[in-house]
């Protein structure tokens, strides 16, 4: 009974995650490589799969892997936002639109062109070969752990970043109005 209580108290707090990610460099590395592999493979699937529904579901897996990497980085609030906002809102919006448009098979079959594919992948490889040597030079000094809990993020958001936070509401209002005005059916035409 005591162990069960203890277990629940560990799971209930974010100490659970910190316990896992600080219990040794090997454990952290294992989780990092696992989630990174899932993220990259699922992203490749999202880009390469032919059916939009399949790419969307593959992107969903990739988003969850990114959220797991956020947890690994002790950014708990951002991880929750990632799951709620991306997986819960944005991808469902995509799903609605894809099902609403109901594209036929002939439309889907001409989405890929051979020369474009070769050129695109070539440009991507060039970009990667430029980025990776530069990024490998970054060496950050180990910083003290500042977990991104809701308390910490909220305190920062409502003091130092209060004005940008309020301006965000204006942006969202403009987006709502724009989406409704664009997508509604004209009555008179």
């Amino acid at each position, binding site marked *: 009974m005591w162990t069960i209580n203890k277990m629940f108290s560990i799971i209930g707090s974010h100490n659970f995650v910190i316990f896992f990610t600080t219990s040794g*460099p090997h454990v*952290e*590395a294992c989780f990092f490589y696992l989630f*990174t592999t899932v993220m*990259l493979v699922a992203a*490749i699937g*999202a*880009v390469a799969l032919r059916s*939009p529904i399949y*790419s969307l579901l593959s992107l969903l897996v990739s988003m969850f892997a*990114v959220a797991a*990497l*956020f947890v690994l*980085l002790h*950014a708990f609030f*951002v991880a929750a*936002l990632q799951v709620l*906002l*991306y997986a819960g809102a944005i991808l469902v*919006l*995509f799903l609605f*639109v894809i099902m609403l*448009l109901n594209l036929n098979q002939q439309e*889907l079959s*001409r989405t*890929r*062109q051979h020369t*474009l594919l070769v050129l*695109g992948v070539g*440009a*991507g490889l060039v970009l*990667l070969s430029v*980025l*990776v040597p530069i*990024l*490998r030079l*970054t*060496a*950050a000094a*180990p*910083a*003290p*752990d*500042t977990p*991104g809990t809701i308390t*910490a*993020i909220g305190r*920062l*958001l409502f003091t130092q970043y209060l004005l*940008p936070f309020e301006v*965000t509401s204006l*942006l*969202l209002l403009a*987006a*709502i109005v*724009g*989406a*409704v005005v*664009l*997508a509604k059916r004209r009555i008179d035409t």
Partner: protein
Amino acid sequence: MINLHHYLVASAALFVIGFVGMVTRRNAILLLLSIEILFNAANLALVAASRYLGNLNGQILVFFSMTVAAAEVSVGLAIAILLVRHLKTLNADEVRLLKW
């Protein structure tokens, strides 16, 4: 030991995948989806930098970036619906209204 550059290289790889998707796919909805991958790559780099530099400002920036992504997607998908309704296509190559 996982260091900052591990996360940055993973983020760069994700960014390149999204970039290749942007360049190769011609479906307007898939273009928006590739933009989401690009946003995620940037968010990952920001959160990793925030963790290893020891301040939370990067995570605040990710919050704003997610808001902008949500606004962009809602308007972009509305435009995609308009494309299908008026031009009967989602192929970005066939949308040439602004060419000249």
